[in-house]
């Protein structure tokens, strides 16, 4: 690989890394035909992990980090002094194909700074995807970041080649957008997300190909004053009304050459983690946004206990739950019991009465679950759920979560 291309790759990978989305999931299963390259597996594969614990699944790069926008939180804003570079369409195609052949990646996640115009930028992104599919018989995963300001037909075209399209909400409120991202317009973003959502639903019903893995988005956590409750409600709206597949939460992270209007501090990683847990409660645990809000204090999720435990501690009267009798929905509310453990409990108890030892084989978090459940040979004696020190006993011991 020549040095010029390597240099561009370093700049444009660095410029893309603040997008938390990494997944290569949700595409319909495909395999390579004769002479073709690439497949998709459904769940996607993480091909490596970097020392930040994040996975590398896709080649995540920008086409260029030149940008006309000036979003304060972004390393690529036009007023930043970072080094700039621009790939040609062919260069991105080559990198993707050669990395893919060596089994480094599942495919490509391509985004870009806005150059010349949103339409021009979107056309370039689409050309990369089209060339991969048409000229190289590439059947791997392609995720394109859509430019919300681009004309609708360009988004339509992108959806023909991409497995997933995404548009980042970034800032959850109009006021924050106005302050931190002056060129962005909340209504335009929302409309573009709605447009993609409509197209996906329509294509599915007409059995046409359009962004089959759905769409996802990202919100930045900690760059403005939005509470966890507001973020979770926003996500519930995006999942419910806009049919998004994933909302990514990205702890606002210090960037090289930071902006004057955003103080740079350590990223709130634990807060990000709790938001993901709250998000999972919405998607897999039949919690309503009100339930998750109920687990917060002044709109914020506790950092030392997970949101499900926080909810249970506030609703002690609904526990303990009998693992041999309770319905699925109530079992899902038991701290320490994951959705898979619950399914195993329900399957096993058709044939046997579960004792505490049995439950211990079905979950790895019995310590947390124990005060909240009843088994054939076990009842939390003396009303363990009434103990005042229960929270302290179950909270995570304070630990170093980042370098500071």
């Amino acid at each position: 690989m020549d040095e010029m291309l390597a240099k561009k790759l370093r700049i444009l990978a660095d410029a893309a890394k603040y997008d938390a989305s990494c997944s290569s999931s949700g595409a319909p299963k495909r395999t390579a035909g004769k002479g073709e390259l690439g497949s998709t597996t459904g769940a996607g594969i993480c091909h490596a992990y970097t020392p930040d614990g994040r996975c590398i699944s896709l080649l995540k790069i920008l086409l260029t980090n030149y940008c006309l926008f000036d979003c304060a939180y972004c390393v690529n804003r036009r007023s930043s002094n970072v080094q700039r570079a621009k790939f040609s369409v062919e260069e991105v195609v080559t990198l993707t194909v050669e990395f893919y052949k060596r089994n480094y990646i599942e495919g490509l996640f391509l985004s870009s700074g806005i150059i010349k115009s949103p339409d021009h930028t979107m056309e370039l992104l689409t050309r990369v995807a089209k060339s991969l599919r048409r000229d190289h018989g590439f059947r791997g995963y392609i995720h394109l970041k859509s430019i919300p300001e681009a004309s609708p037909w360009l988004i339509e075209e992108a959806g023909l080649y991409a497995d997933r399209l995404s548009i980042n909400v970034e800032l959850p409120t109009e006021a924050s957008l106005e302050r931190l991202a002056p060129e962005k317009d909340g209504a335009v973003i929302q409309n573009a997300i709605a447009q993609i959502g409509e197209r996906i639903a329509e294509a599915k019903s007409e059995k046409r190909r359009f962004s089959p893995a759905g769409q996802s988005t990202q919100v930045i956590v900690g760059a403005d004053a939005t509470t966890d409750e507001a973020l979770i409600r926003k996500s519930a709206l995006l999942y419910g009304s806009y049919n998004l597949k994933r909302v990514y939460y990205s702890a606002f992270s210090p960037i090289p050459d930071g902006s004057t209007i955003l103080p740079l501090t350590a990223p709130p990683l634990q807060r990000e983690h709790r938001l993901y847990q709250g998000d999972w409660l919405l998607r897999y645990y039949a919690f309503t946004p009100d339930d998750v809000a109920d687990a917060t204090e002044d709109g914020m999720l506790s950092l030392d206990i997970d949101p499900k435990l926080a909810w249970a501690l506030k609703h002690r009267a609904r526990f303990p739950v009998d693992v041999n009798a309770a319905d699925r929905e109530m079992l899902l509310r038991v701290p320490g019991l994951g959705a898979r453990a619950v399914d195993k409990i329900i399957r096993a108890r058709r044939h046997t009465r579960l004792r505490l030892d049995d439950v211990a084989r079905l979950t790895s978090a019995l310590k947390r679950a124990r005060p909240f459940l009843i088994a054939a040979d076990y009842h939390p004696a003396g009303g363990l759920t009434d103990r005042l020190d229960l929270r302290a006993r179950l909270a995570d011991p304070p630990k170093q979560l980042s370098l500071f």
Partner: protein
Amino acid sequence: MAGAHRSAPPSPAEGTGFGRGALEAVDLSPGADLEGFRAAARRLAGRGIPPERVLWSIGEASGLFGAPPPAPSEEAPLSLPRGVGEMVARVVLHRDPERYALLYDLIWRIQRGERRLLEISSDPLVHRLERMRKAIARDLHKMHAFLRFRRVEGDGPERFVAWFEPDHHILGAAAPFFVDRFRGLDWTILTPEASARWDGDVLAFGPPGRREDAPAQDGFEAGWRDYYESTFNPARTNLAAMRAEMPKKYWRNMPETAAIPGLVRQAAARTGAMIERTPQMPVKRNPARAVAAMADQAPDSLEALNALIRRSEPLVPGATQAVLGEGPLGASIAFVGEQPGDQEDRQGRPFVGPAGQLLSRAMAEAGIARGEAYLTNAVKHFKFEERGKRRIHQKPTAGEVSHYRWWLDRELDFVAPKLVVALGATAVLALTGKQIPITRARGPADFEKPYAGFITVHPSYLLRLPDEAKAEAYAAFVADLRRVHDLGRSLAA
């Protein structure tokens, strides 16, 4: 020696006093001997030999190369509930020497009445087998994820070779993934137990490989390491999370991991520097004009719009080229059809096929000069399906029509007609966004647009009618066009 299984006859010498009979010795091939186990399990269960009387051992002879050969067995198959076969096929891949004993225990208990045993994940045996199965799934997953190919240097066709050390006997089970993914490549995977080669057509298993048999380097590895380093965010360093997913044992076969110590060493300093650094003033001038110009991206003329449509990919399957509208800017009447047909697609002009010729005739009879009207289609590309040598017209779906609406709207903005005639249901859908039956809506219509609207049938409808109905329908069509003509004249006045 495919599917080697030798069951020693029960001999008194082996009777060690356990239970009621002598020990039954079963010797299986090294690696994952699924066939050998299956045959032995059938024989043992058929003879009612309980697990505690079976002694499982694994022989020396190797010949399987990790790929289970199909070996027919004379014994009657066991009837087992769904899921058991799958569990067995996975757990035999485990390197635990106890695997066959555990699996036979499972089969025995199921045969003796515990038919639903696999559903009881809390049972200690099931729990243990599930963990073994999970270990296999993880090993397979990690092999799919962490294996790295290197290109064999030299001229000639590309060849790729990888060296990998799985924990379990999974090469045979892992290989199909690589076939599905790299079908067009020539590749070899070497492991300490066996090797697999795909030449683009056939998958073959062979003897064990050595690390030295794989190329020592690859031209893209430096670039890959650069990418790995650049995508790491030092402010989020979390080594435990990395190691949980990518344990150290894999590192030696992954070129990018050489960067880890350096990245970790510098992370704190790099993050500190980002936080300490006082924000800098931008050195570049503010590109105010470029920023202002950015929003001005919509095509500013019909020509520019047409260039864009011509350049765009068809949003329907088929189509050799885009067929653009035709006629003078400022025409007082515009006709909108459904989509180009076979002839239009070949010639690149609208309404030149049989339906177009019929339209021209009717227009002439109604007094409308074709050259003075603007003619276009709701969908700009011919959607068809190839059947033999014929290209069969396909009706565009509502979704496809709406893809093209943006263009049609801009196009009519530039032409700025006084009256727009929708020919058929697709045109109505494109102009109004609604499905409206033509028979009911025929005549003047309100499209809620700056121009007046008129709805009539598409001329191709006339072509499809039986002969006896044609004349009447054609007369009605011409009558519609006369009204259009009059309306157009009064609107233009």
